[in-house]
């Protein structure tokens, strides 16, 4: 109980310190969190760089704003939502995984899955073809079927 009270007091003091307009020392915000949020936002003046990476002044100011908002108690999602509210979906470096945008996340993996299936089919066909080590006379019907199946194989 005492421990709980002490902890609450400590947190209150910390918050009080954070709310006081101090300029000297960084607010009690994890720099890594700032970096993580900034890494998800697109720098508006550069191309393709994140706010975390960009050396531009705009990005530096945006990092400051992220820091401020996190220090004021906002969650990373809320800070992100704030930027989306001001700049539109475009500001997110990777589209949210919902709606139409799901396509971009799903299609590559679906493509790989499809590709694996195709590879499996091709490999089975290659190994089911008549053994090349037997140069003996083949049943003409079998030969015809093989020729047909091989030509299917070469279709796109």
């Amino acid at each position, binding site marked *: 109980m005492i421990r709980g009270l002490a902890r609450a007091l400590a947190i209150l003091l910390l918050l009080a310190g954070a709310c006081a307009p101090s300029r000297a020392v960084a607010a009690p915000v994890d720099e890594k969190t700032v970096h993580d949020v900034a890494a998800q936002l697109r720098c*508006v*003046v550069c191309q393709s760089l994140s706010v975390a990476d960009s050396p531009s*002044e*705009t990005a530096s*100011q*945006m990092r*400051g*704003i992220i820091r*401020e908002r996190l220090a004021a108690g906002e969650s990373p999602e809320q800070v992100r939502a704030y*930027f*989306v*509210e*001001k*700049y*539109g979906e*475009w500001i997110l470096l990777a589209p949210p995984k919902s709606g139409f945008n799901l396509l971009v996340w799903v299609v590559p993996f679906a493509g790989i899955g499809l590709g694996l299936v195709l590879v499996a089919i091709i490999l089975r066909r290659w190994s089911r073809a008549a053994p090349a080590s037997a140069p003996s006379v083949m049943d003409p019907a079998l030969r015809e079927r093989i020729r*047909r199946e091989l*030509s*299917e194989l070469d*279709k*796109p």
Partner: protein
Amino acid sequence: MRASWLRWAIPAAVVPVLMLLAYGFKTNPHEIPSPLLDRPAAAFTLTTFGGSPVSLESLRGKVVMLNFWASWCRPACYEEAPTLERTWREYKDKGVMVVGVDIQDRAEAAQKFLAEFGHSFPNAPDPAGRVAVDYGVYGVPETFFIDRKGRVRFKQVGALTDEIARQRLDTLLKEPW
């Protein structure tokens, strides 16, 4: 041969891709529509270069032309500066307020800019870029037209001209309170 038309699938598959790329000619990757249109303008409180405060709240009821600029922004900000002053002089008695916000700039360079164009409307620096981000500013110059109810109605990206300014302001002034 079974399904001999299948072989033409690949050349055919190229066509939608080409069409998508052709569509790209109609778009401009640098033009990003603002999500702030028809939404309440973000409140701000700034201190002008002259030391007086200016806030959006205090301007409720007026049509506000909020212009973001910088002294390093050549040539666009320099081109539109006379327009801003002219527009201000013409509309200040009609219930319009012009406010300039200077971003990412040095005080001396900004003062020099203001002196060169003799701006008589309030101009304030935006020290940490908070107001700029609140308005989703990508670069300078950008001008926002805010109606009497405090909603952002138009956004002008790039240098403002006299015609555009007049057109926007006249439209907003005609609206009732």
